[in-house]
C-alpha cells in the first residue's frame, strides 16, 4: 500500500493563500488506510484551514469530498460539479491521485496536501514502515522475503555494511533493524544461508524505464 503523510501546515497555507474557495479532496484507498488523506483527515485539514484563515481575518470556504480512488479518472470525474465551484483543489491523495486530478481539471490549480513517502505496511496501530521500492526487478526470492533495497539504508545487495550496530541495528538509526541481519536470521532459520553467500551482480536500476509503463495481457 502507498503510504503518505500530511505536509506541514505552513506549506499548505501558503499554497492556499490566493484562494477564497477550495475543494479539499480525499482519496478512499491507500491514504485513508494510512491516516493521511481519507474522509476524516479531509475534515480535520479543512477545519484547520478555515480556522487559520479566519484567525487572519481572511475567511476561506472549503468544500469537502472523498472519492474511492483519486488515481482513477472516472472516479475523480464525479467531483466535476464541486471543482467547478472552487478556485483551486487541495488534494490529499498520493502523487498519482494529485496528477489525475490536475489532468482532469486542467484549468484549476491542484495542490498536494500530503507527501507520498513509500510503499509499506502497518507495523502497529498508526505506524507504517517501508517495505518495497518498486524497483521493477524483485530480489525477494534471494533474501528470505526481506527487501534489502529499501530496508537497508544503503540498499546493499551483498550483505551488511560495516556499520551494523550492536544487536543488529542500523548504522543510522538504532531503532531500525539492519535488514541484512534480518535476512541472515531468516535464511539461517530456513537452512538457506547459501543464498546469502552467493554473489549478486550489480542491480539493473533500469528495469523500469522512466516513465514506467506496465501493459497487461490484452483482455
Amino acid at each position: 500500500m502507498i503510504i503518505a503523510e500530511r505536509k506541514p501546515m505552513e506549506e499548505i497555507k501558503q499554497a492556499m493563500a490566493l484562494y477564497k474557495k477550495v475543494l479539499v479532496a480525499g482519496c478512499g484507498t491507500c491514504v485513508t488506510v494510512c491516516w493521511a488523506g481519507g474522509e476524516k483527515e479531509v475534515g480535520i485539514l479543512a477545519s484547520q484551514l478555515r480556522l487559520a484563515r479566519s484567525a487572519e481575518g481572511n475567511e476561506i470556504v472549503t468544500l469537502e469530498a472523498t472519492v474511492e480512488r483519486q488515481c482513477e479518472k472516472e472516479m475523480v470525474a464525479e467531483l466535476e460539479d464541486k471543482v467547478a465551484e472552487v478556485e483551486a483543489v487541495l488534494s490529499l491523495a498520493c502523487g498519482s491521485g494529485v496528477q489525475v486530478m490536475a489532468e482532469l481539471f486542467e484549468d484549476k490549480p491542484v495542490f498536494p496536501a500530503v507527501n507520498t513517502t513509500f510503499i509499506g505496511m502497518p507495523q502497529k496501530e498508526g505506524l507504517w514502515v517501508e517495505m518495497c521500492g518498486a524497483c521493477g526487478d524483485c530480489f525477494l526470492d534471494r533474501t528470505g522475503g526481506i527487501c534489502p533495497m529499501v530496508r537497508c539504508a544503503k540498499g546493499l545487495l551483498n550483505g551488511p555494511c560495516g556499520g551494523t550496530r550492536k544487536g543488529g541495528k542500523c548504522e543510522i538509526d538504532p531503532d531500525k533493524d539492519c535488514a541484512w541481519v534480518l535476512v541472515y536470521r531468516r535464511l539461517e532459520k530456513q537452512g538457506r544461508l547459501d543464498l546469502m553467500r552467493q554473489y549478486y551482480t550489480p542491480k539493473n536500476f533500469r528495469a523500469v524505464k522512466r516513465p514506467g509503463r506496465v501493459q497487461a495481457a490484452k483482455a
Partner: protein
Amino acid sequence: MEARIGVFICNCGGGMKNIDFDAAGAKVAKIRGVTCVNLISDLCLEEGTEKMAARIRAENLDKVVVAGCSPQFKEHVFRNVLENAGLDGHLLCMANIREQCSWAHDGDVTEKAVDLVKMAVYKARLLRPVEKQDIAVDRKVLVVGGGFSAVASALRLSRVGLRPTVLEKEAVLGTSSEELQRFYGFDVSSMIGAAEGDANIEVLTSARMTAAKGAAGDFLVTIMREGEEISRKYGAIVFATGYRTELALDSGLGLPAENEAVSGPKIVSQEQLFDMLNDPFTDTKPRTIGFVFGFSDENSRFPTLATLNNALAAKKEWDSEIYVFCRDVEVDSEGVEKLYREARECGVVFLKCEALPRIAVDNGRIAIEAEDVFLGEDTVVACDLLVAEELLFPTEGTAALSSLLNIRLDSRGFYQDENVHLYPVASERKGVFFVGGCRGDLDMGRVLTDISSAVMSIDKLLSSGTITAEIERVKADPQKCVACLTCIRVCPHGAVQLGRVDGGKEIAVIADLACDACGICAAVCPAKAIDFQGYRDDQLLAQIEAIGES
C-alpha cells in the same frame, strides 16, 4: 420530511426557581423542528409520564426532548415512556437543565436552559431508532484452571443452574491447591470429588484452550485435548488460572544468590518448610528459624499467612526460636489477626524493619542483620534455617491465554489492573471474568468474594437464556469501510473483527453482544465509516452548532 419533535419541560416540582419556564417554553417553541412544547410539573411521576405518553401519541411525535433532570438519573424512565407510546427509546434526547443549569448557577438561567434545550433539539432531529433483539445465549460456562478457585466456581455455577466445564492443563484437578488445604483447612479433595460427581459439571483434564472467538453469550472456544481439537460454545469464560511462587533468590532482595547459598536446606520456601514439618521420617530440628518477607513491592497477605501458620507449627513441633523480619504484618484477612496474637503469645519474635535485612553465611549458620525500627539499632540473629521471601507470579501460560482473548494484563502479568469500573472480576471483554490468584496476591476471603461476584454476574448474564442486544447501534458502513483494521486494533473490548457481510468483501464487523458502546472506533475510523447511534458525528456536531448559534 421535517421531524416532529416534542419538547417536555419539567420544573421538578418547583425545584428550579431560577428558570422562567413560561419564557423558556415560548423561546423553545420557536426552534426549528419543535412541534409542541409541554410544560409538565413532576414529569417523572406517574401522572407526568402518562401525560407525556398521551401527548406523544396525540401529536404524532417522532422525536422527544425532555428538559429536566440529568439523564444519568431518569433517562431510563423517559425511554420507557417512549417505548410505551410506541416510539423507540433511542429517539429521546435529554436537556439537563437541573443539575447542570439551574442548580449549578445563581441568578436567572432561563437563557442557558433554552440553549441546552436547543442543543438537545438539534441532536434530536438526527436521532434514529435502534433495533433490539433477544439473542439466545449458551448456558455453558468455561472455567479455565483446575485449582481451588476453578473447582469452587464450577460448583457454584452448577448450583445456580448453569453448566460449567472445568478445563485443566494438568492430568488431575487441584494440583497446586495443597497450600489452601494446609493453611486454610479447605477440603479441596472432597470439593474435587463433588465436582467430578456433578452431572452439570464437565471436567476436561490435560486440555488447553487454543483459540477463542465471539462475544458474551456466544463464545466459540477451541480446546486441544490429547492431540484432539474440540470446538465448544460457551456463554461466558472464567479464568481461575492461579499464581505460582518463586523463592526470591538472586532477585535483588538481598538474599545470597543460589550458588553462594550453603547447602540447599538452609534457605527454604514456606512450602519446603511445611513439608519438613510434616515429614515423619526426619529428625531435623532447627533450633533457630528466621523468616524474611514483605520486602518486595508486592502485597504480603500470602506470606504473612504462611509465615504465621508455619511459625506456629514449628514452635509446636520443634520448639524452635523464631524471628520474623518483615516490613509489615498484613492482618486484614479474616482470622489473621488472631493467628498473629497466638504467634506472639507463644514467643515468636517480630522485628519490623524498613530496610532489607542483610544476610550472610557465617560458620554454617545464616546471619540475618537488620535495623529494627522500634529499637533503632541493628539486630543480628544467627539461625539454622532461613525461610526466604517468595515472589508471586502468574502461572505460566497466562500471557498466552490473555492474548487469545485480547485481554490486557497488569504490569506484573496478572489479570485485572484494578480498573474501578471493572473491579473486581469483570474484564474489558463482556462475559470474561477472573477469579482468585490469577488476579494477584489475594487472601481466601477475597477469593471467595471473587467467586461469588463472578457467579452472580454470569448468572445475571446467562440465566434467562437470552440477552437483549441493541442491533447495529455501532456499525461500520460496508460501503465506506476500507478494512484498514484500525478499529479492530483499537477496540478495547475485542468487539470488532474482520468479516464478510452476506459474502461481500472483508470489512470491520462489530459484534453487538461484545460492543460496550464507547465510540473509540467511531473516533479513529479514517474513512468515517462507523456510525454510533446517539453519538454519531453529525449528532455531536449538531450540538456544537446549536451552541454556536446561541
